[in-house]
């Protein structure tokens, strides 16, 4: 027993040394180097009494599909750099597993994008990273440029505890540059539903021309309204997007109205049973979508326009 403890202490010291080496390796490319060194950190996070099945694996954009199949396209659309994966198995039972995946998404914005797109509403939140939640015995966390997924074989108290311990260890060793995500502050806070902001790098709302777009849900009385916002390179570019939006609405909807309220110009799109309202403000294109009440859609769009700050 004593020798086992000694062995564990030696292993811990070796891992600490490796951790120091890994952290020191952060250079001009910042966390890319740390990301390459993640297998060392991950190995040190093996739950007590468990072991690593096969080995810690890393995947790049070129071979991510080998691990996660068709879902790879989703992560690649957000410019994933590297994914570190390990499967922990209970020493006695290989069908009892916990899978850990750490996605290095290059920027906090991209990491927020995949986290927010996959986020389940109403799950218990975690005080880890910038945001996170538990779903059964599975954990999903966003920290800086990283998105962490911990998937357990079964939902038991034991697996929940092991998963939580693992989540803590992983978020402890991952770094966060602190770089802000634009949409989280740009979208007005008033009436905004907690944890409702999502970031879509491509194809927001099913529209091939809507890129780098944030959406959020707002409570207006008894109605929930989805708003969207995207920052373009220039005011001209933002204007062009509004034109494309109007074309889309003409093609797939029932018609458009061009409205003016003071200096604000809006395009109201009748999508057949619901309304989208779109506007431009400087380099911003924004609006609301899928609102059944036309007047409410227009009112909320105007409120949003007024609250947006131009940078």
């Amino acid at each position, binding site marked *: 027993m004593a020798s086992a403890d000694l062995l564990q202490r030696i292993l811990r010291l070796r891992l600490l040394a490796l951790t120091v080496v890994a952290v020191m390796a952060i250079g001009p490319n910042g966390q890319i180097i740390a990301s390459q060194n993640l297998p060392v950190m991950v190995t040190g996070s093996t739950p007590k009494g468990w072991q690593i*099945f096969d080995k810690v694996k890393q995947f790049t*954009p070129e071979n991510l*599909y*080998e691990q996660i*199949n*068709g*879902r*790879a*396209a*989703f992560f*690649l*659309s957000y410019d994933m750099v590297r994914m570190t994966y390990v*499967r922990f198995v209970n020493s006695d039972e290989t*069908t009892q597993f916990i899978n850990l995946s750490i996605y290095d998404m290059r920027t906090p914005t991209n990491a927020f994008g995949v986290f*927010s*797109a*996959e*986020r*389940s509403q109403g799950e218990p939140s975690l005080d880890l990273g910038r945001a996170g939640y538990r779903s059964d015995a599975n954990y999903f966390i966003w920290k800086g440029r990283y998105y962490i997924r911990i*998937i357990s*074989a079964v939902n038991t108290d034991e697996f929940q505890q092991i998963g939580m311990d693992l989540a803590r260890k992983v978020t402890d060793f991952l770094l966060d540059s602190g770089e802000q995500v634009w949409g989280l502050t740009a979208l007005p806070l008033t009436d905004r539903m907690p944890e409702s902001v*999502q970031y*879509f790098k*491509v*194809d*927001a*709302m*099913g*529209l*091939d021309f809507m890129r780098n777009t944030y959406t959020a849900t707002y409570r207006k009385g008894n109605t929930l309204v989805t708003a969207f916002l995207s920052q373009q390179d220039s005011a001209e570019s933002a204007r062009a997007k509004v034109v494309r939006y109007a074309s*889309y609405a*003409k*093609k*797939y*909807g*029932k*018609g*458009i*109205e*061009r*409205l*003016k*309220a003071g200096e604000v110009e*809006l395009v109201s799109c*009748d*999508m*057949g049973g619901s309304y989208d309202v779109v506007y431009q403000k400087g380099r911003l294109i924004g609006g609301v979508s*899928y609102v059944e009440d036309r007047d409410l859609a*227009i009112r909320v769009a105007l409120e949003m326009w007024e609250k947006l700050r131009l940078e």
Partner: protein
Amino acid sequence: MIKQKKNRDTFDRREFIKIVAAATFSGPILLSTAYSKSNVSTGTKETIHRNEQPTMTYRKLGRTGFLSSRLVFGCGAALTGGKAVRLLQRAFEAGINHFDVGSDIYYKGSERNLAPFLKDHREQVWVVSKAPANVYTKSGDSITLEQAKSAAKYWTGLMDASLKDLQTDYVDAYYLMAVDNPSLVRSEEVYNAFLKAKTAGKVGHFGLSTHKNAQKVLEAAIETGWYDLAMIGITPAGWYDWSTKSLAQDTSTLVELQGLLKRATEAGIGLVGMKTVRYLAPLWSLGKGDPSAFDKVYGEKLKSSSLSPFQRGYAYVLQHGIDVVNADMQNFKHLEENIIAAATDDRYFS
């Protein structure tokens, strides 16, 4: 104060889809002929009909009896994050009646994002979901009894979660997802787990999806007689191997695979194609970035058509033994192109 600046332009959405298809392909009369021919030839008394529209063609799916739109809406990736939710209604209006999704463990949030659409249309559409069995073996190894039992438990657990996320008590079919091991296909433990779920009224039909070692997996499925549906990674040039993102090594062409596909059909298995044109897609979309890769197998009529390389791929497999194709459609542009391909595939072949 708000004032109206211009008159409204009015469009009927269904009419628009018809116009797009007709304008692209020689007029509405030709389209109507194609639709009626396809529908009449496949309809029988036992056929299950759901949301059939003149803008789509249909094919009966094996022993299920379901007359499926030849274009299947692949919801898995498209509904992650809910970004393509608005496409569902458009797809429905165009006559797509077959919606394929996947477990939350894989396509996170997709089933939940499909649920509101199903609330409005559940009786009018065919819904399939799927989940992996989570068995880790080499394709050629036999799974152990312990692994089979674990797989059955895991898979049916995910099926229950799917029903909860879809907010329905029944799916028309549930697949064993991404199967590459024939011994898993032959697992009585898994099949019995399916039968138990079927008896409980949770699911109607048993299926599998495969895009690695697919030929052997399909042969095993035929041999068992248990499977009603098989979603297979197939291209005009032959089997697609997802593990390499390429055509399977030494694959026969689709023409050469007709015997096997016919055997599957005779065994009552409805064949759903997938990954059909992935190979043509750009690298960032997990393709090889070569849109002309399948041109060598096409006839002159198809090659000289105005179809895009992606549309050609779909049209070709639909004319060569594949009942329907599952397409990942993430925006309105994809949807529009694929509807046209599925609705007009037969006119490029003698």
